[in-house]
């Protein structure tokens, strides 16, 4: 019943998306056509219907309705409720439905609130949004119907991959998806602006909150995913340059660049074509990322669509949407003038530099990720990993970080280095001092660079506050400071982890103590424990930091039964200055237990820094939306007063 309702809502939403596209198209072709008035309401209803379909899917998962094929394939009646719920999007069809839901809702919201742009641009934007959505509706309805029925119903579901049964992971995909799909709005704005040749500061201002929102979610998604990998995979690594990780990093890099170039366009009416291009590129990267993950052409083993049909469908959509946008860009960009001019030594100059560097880093990640595929087409197999990505991205990221310290201090349009020298000198000295100390300590090149830059950057991040009254600093500026400081913090965490981690791999009897860095860890005992759908051996460890109070750690070696699989659950002891990371391995024949222990100084700074970056985005978003609201309210008041006076 619910499944039928969901499918009906999905079909209706698809039909409305088509109506939205046709109505907007007609209104654009013939000025003053009545259909124009339809577009906004249709966009809103379309979003709501997509959401209804998604709610229906969640409902059938929560009830474990085994007459729905998707539920039977991916769920199990014995699963905890949280994972039944999250199971709705923990599979290909469900996540695609989530995709169109977010697209529909975001499009509806744009239709509802955005009034700054000229109406034709809005129509073109909503037409673009409908066009992209339609492709995904077609994908769902033709080849990935989430509501497909089983007759007769399955006796029991097949379960969800145990590694995915983790509270963090349950909400990780939707977070990333909101980021991915949020960028579709930026894409639609860019296409709308190209169609009507209206690339203006108003366009940038309309686009900016959406880019900011998507970027915040992408940031949180990446941070959460990285932390999840760190504690779940059991070897203490937090970034692997895995294709699937890169798939989320690429849209983030593009969105970061877009965010900054949109600021230039909004404030100074410059970088017009570049901003439009980035709008297209950012969403392209979302789609490329989705394609790489879904098609399974890069990573070898995967639960999702290793099905070439699905891969081809996404590839087709990608080629159609992005190809069309790029052709449109090539045709129209020549008519988009560059906008206001500015000097090298100016805020814009620094932002342009960093935009180019971010794009360069994006290029490296893209090439490194795809290269194994190209090599395969040429008949050889190669692997591209950290030894390539780390130094090659550093080529672009290190200069970018240096300019990042200086840029916010520069004035718009034209400035001189002489003016900001005093503000730059102190962070630069700090960087130099840190570098020389670390050289003496014999640190490796990349961690050394990272740490020295982090020191200077942390200080430089606050320099824009100099000479300002703190109570009068606006939220977007606080946001920028938080985000830039977050970059320094994360960088410090990465450098510290790679330079100072202490590893101990040992086999111990119960009762035996091991030292790892400043910690002394004693394996007290091993006890069996049982969870809802697993059993485990749990180690009870006592850890003391420099002889202090004991802290108890409980790493587990888990065995799931639906489907059967073994995982190791690491245990962490967190201090302000780092984390102790413990994993329980197998028992040797002599009765000793294999332990893996790491002391990772300041490793948590990586994720705290990431969260600070996201917080910066949140502050900026609140500031922007607030000032937009104030403007709308003020305009409303003026209109109201005029009306009153007129009478």
């Amino acid at each position, binding site marked *: 019943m619910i499944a039928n309702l969901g499918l009906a809502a999905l079909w209706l939403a698809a039909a409305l998306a088509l109506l939205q596209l046709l109505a907007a198209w007609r209104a654009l072709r013939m000025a003053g056509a009545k259909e124009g008035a339809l577009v906004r309401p249709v966009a809103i209803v379309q979003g709501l219907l997509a959401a209804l379909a998604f709610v229906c899917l969640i409902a059938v998962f929560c009830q474990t309705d085994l007459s729905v094929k998707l539920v039977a394939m991916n769920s199990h009646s014995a699963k905890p409720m949280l994972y039944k719920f999250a199971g709705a999007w923990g599979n290909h069809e469900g996540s695609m439905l989530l995709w169109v839901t977010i697209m529909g809702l975001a499009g509806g919201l744009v239709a509802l609130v955005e009034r700054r742009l000229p109406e034709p641009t809005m129509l073109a934007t909503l037409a673009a949004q409908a066009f992209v959505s339609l492709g995904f509706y077609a994908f769902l309805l033709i080849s990935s119907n989430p509501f497909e029925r089983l007759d007769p119903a399955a006796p029991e579901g097949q379960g969800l991959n145990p590694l995915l049964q983790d509270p963090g992971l349950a909400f990780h995909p939707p977070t990333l998806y909101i980021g991915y799909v949020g960028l579709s709005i930026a894409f639609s704005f860019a296409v709308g602006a190209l169609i009507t040749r209206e690339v203006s500061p108003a366009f940038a201002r309309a686009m900016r909150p959406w880019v900011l929102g998507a970027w915040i979610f992408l940031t949180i998604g990446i941070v959460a995913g990285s932390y999840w990998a760190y504690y779940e995979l059991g070897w203490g690594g937090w970034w692997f340059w895995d294709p699937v990780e890169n798939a989320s990093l690429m849209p983030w890099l593009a969105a970061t660049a877009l965010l900054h170039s949109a600021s230039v366009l909004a404030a100074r009416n410059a970088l017009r074509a570049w901003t439009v291009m980035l709008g297209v590129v950012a969403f*392209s990267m979302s789609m490329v990322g989705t394609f790489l993950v879904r098609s399974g*052409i890069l990573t070898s083993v995967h639960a999702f669509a290793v099905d*070439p049909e699905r891969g081809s469908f996404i*590839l087709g959509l990608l080629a159609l949407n992005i190809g069309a946008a790029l052709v449109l*860009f090539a045709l129209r960009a020549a008519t988009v003038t560059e906008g206001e001019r500015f000097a090298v030594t100016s805020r814009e100059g620094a932002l342009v530099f960093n935009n180019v560097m971010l794009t360069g880093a994006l290029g490296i990640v893209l090439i490194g990720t795809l290269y194994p595929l190209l090599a*395969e087409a040429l008949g050889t197999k190669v692997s591209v990993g950290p030894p390539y990505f780390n130094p090659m991205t550093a080529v672009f990221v290190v200069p970018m970080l240096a300019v990042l310290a200086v840029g916010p201090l520069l004035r718009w349009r034209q400035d001189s280095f002489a003016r900001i020298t005093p503000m730059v000198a102190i962070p630069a000295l700090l960087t130099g001092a840190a570098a020389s100390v670390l050289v003496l300590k014999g640190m490796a090149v990349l961690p050394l660079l990272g740490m020295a830059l982090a020191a200077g950057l942390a200080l430089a991040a606050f320099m824009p506050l100099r000479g300002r009254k703190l109570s009068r600093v606006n939220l977007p500026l606080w946001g920028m400071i938080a985000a830039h400081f977050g970059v320094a913090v994360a960088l410090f965490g990465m450098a510290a982890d790679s330079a100072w981690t202490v590893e101990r791999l040992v086999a111990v009897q119960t009762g035996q103590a091991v030292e790892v860095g400043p910690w002394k860890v004693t394996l007290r005992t091993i006890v069996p424990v049982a969870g809802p759908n697993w059993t485990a051996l749990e180690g009870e460890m006592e850890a003391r930091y420099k002889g202090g109070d004991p802290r108890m750690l409980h790493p587990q070696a888990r065995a799931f039964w639906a489907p059967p699989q073994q995982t190791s659950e690491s245990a962490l002891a967190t201090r302000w200055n780092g984390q102790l990371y413990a994993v329980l391995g197998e028992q040797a024949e002599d009765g000793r237990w294999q332990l893996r222990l790491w002391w990772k100084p300041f490793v948590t700074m990586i994720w705290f820094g990431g969260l600070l970056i996201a917080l910066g985005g949140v502050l900026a978003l609140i500031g922007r939306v607030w000032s937009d609201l104030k403007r709308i309210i003020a305009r409303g008041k003026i209109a109201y007063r005029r009306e009153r006076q007129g009478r």
Partner: protein
Amino acid sequence: MSAPAKPSRWALWLPVVLFVGFIALVAVGLWRPASRDVHSAMIGKELPRFDLPPAVPERPGLARGDMLGGKPRLLNIFASWCIPCAAEAQQLEQLRQLGVEVDGVAIRDKQDDLAVFLARNGNPYARIGADPVSKIQFDIGSSGVPESFVVDARGVIRYQHIGVIAPDQVPMILARLKEAEQ
């Protein structure tokens, strides 16, 4: 880039060209599904030196020297804990009956388990070396079990077969062995 007042035409089409290249590349990757097997790079090269102790008392161990001279031999990498290997045993036995000399290396195996495995599935091996640390795999470029290598009389690796030798692949293996005679 917004740089020049009149951006040159070709520069604007560059993203399109790159994008078409990208689509072509991934389309090829998608429609010509790459094999996930990791192939040995030792084909055509000499078998490295190794000397493995016997894995079970009833068969001698295996060293590089044992595989030289005479006719081409089949080197089978297997293990008693490997379920597909049990399915492969029949084909190996068939090959043995057809006069093929099959040598085995048992990977990460225990003598008792191996004895049970051989008793249950038959023992087509002339020799079985024990490699409890997978060292020979790293030497000859094997990444799993079962795998089979055709080694010619001069000790050159001529062919690698990844996975189970299926019943219908027996003639193909025979052909490979024949080829290795030259």
